[in-house]
């Protein structure tokens, strides 16, 4: 299974919200039947499947379709290493790409183990 890491991104969150909306709609329309297709919508189980599929897709897209490099520098506020996941909080950071420079006061970095991407056993 691919990392579920990327669910908390713009792309992932918007997907989760959309799925939640569809799930809620089905529960509302349980009593009223307009068209059969609308009364059903999706189940939470189906939503979970979609998210799992999203995980695979985003992981592979990042690995294959992205080819750029970023540098950054800042001061480290906190660090945590738990369950093989690093979590950092940096302050006054500058992110540098070839094209542009981005400055932020505070950034949180969450990093999973990248060796052997998908180091968890695949199903």
């Amino acid at each position, binding site marked *: 299974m691919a990392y579920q*890491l*990327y669910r*908390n*991104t*713009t*792309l992932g*969150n*918007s*997907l989760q*919200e*959309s*799925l939640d*909306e*569809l799930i*809620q709609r089905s529960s509302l329309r349980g009593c009223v039947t307009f068209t059969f*297709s609308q009364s*059903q*919508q*999706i189940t939470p189980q*189906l939503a979970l*499947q*979609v998210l799992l*599929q*999203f995980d*695979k*897709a985003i992981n592979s*897209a*990042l690995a294959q*379709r*992205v080819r*750029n*490099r*970023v*540098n*950054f*520098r*800042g*001061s*480290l*506020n906190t*660090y945590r290493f738990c369950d093989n996941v*690093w979590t*950092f909080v*940096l302050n006054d950071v500058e*992110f540098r*790409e070839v*094209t*542009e420079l*981005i400055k*932020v006061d*505070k*950034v*949180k*970095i*969450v*990093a*999973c*183990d*990248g*060796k052997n991407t998908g180091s968890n056993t695949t199903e």
Partner: protein
Amino acid sequence: MVEPKLYRSVIEDVINDVRDIFLDDGVDEQVLMELKTLWENKLMQSRAVDGFHSEEQQLLLQVQQQHQPQQQQHHHHHHHQQAQPQQTVPQQAQTQQVLIPASQQAAAPQVIVPDSKLIQHMNASNMSAAATAATLALPAGVTPVQQILTNSGQLLQVVRAANGAQYIFQPQQSVVLQQQVIPQMQPGGVQAPVIQQVLAPLPGGISPQTGVIIQPQQILFTGNKTQVIPTTVAAPTPAQAQITATGQQQPQAQPAQQQAPLVLQVDGTGDTSSEEDEDEEEDYDDDEEEDKEKDGAEDGQVEEEPLNSEDDVSDEEGQELFDTENVVVCQYDKIHRSKNKWKFHLKDGIMNLNGRDYIFSKAIGDAEW
């Protein structure tokens, strides 16, 4: 920088991959399309990357209405890989097709909302993305008053969206607290007050904590005289509480408020609802309260309000603005440390910085702890 193409291709891949799952579960294809539309719209709303095809979408919207049968063919052809190189046109057509029955708007403003209940409200408003973000950050204290008819006839609507956020819409951005007398009302005793609330506009500059300014008016009728007593509340207090509280104060406040508008706060620190009354006892109690606040509650907790307001010293909360927590989600190749010098070797990351999305395949960083 993120290219919309990358996100678009991810969406396409996911949608195509789950299509089988949807069909296996017996869920209609239309639901799948709806998911896609919702997903894309949220993406367009939230991020500041060049909108997928927002402009093109509006241009094509009129065209799509005429070419609906053709789009269905495109829709079917979408299964094939050939559709992908054609890129924007069939994809937009596909989304257009679903958007049309949902929105039914000829000229949508910057925001296209798929949810039907939100559409009516966001029709002509000037709500920008920043404003929606500001309204999303409204404190939970604002009750979802559904519709408020103001003095000038503006129809304000407060809608509770599916995710629990509350949107307050106002057809016009200009807000005027109008002290008008309604001549239609008939005299003869004090009538039920007409509480009119004018919601202030919501530009992006309003801080999340004071997103709403509610200004109720009280119009009293006694005999032939009509007195307009405007009261302003500058805190996001529940609207209904205001109505009931001000309703109670109406006869009492009348003589006292003839002079100038008073700031009325019926809850929170101003919990004594009859504060404006000329009761001296109450004033005395208020003074006592204030003194106790300043002294820091020497006697312990006689009054529960003034305490604990300065106990919180964590500095994290000061820095934490919930607007955009800049987040980087990635994988690490190597994390290295020497004394207090840290080196980061990261890869395959998605960053959200200052509201915008960035992606990298490799990132190298230095930091001192």
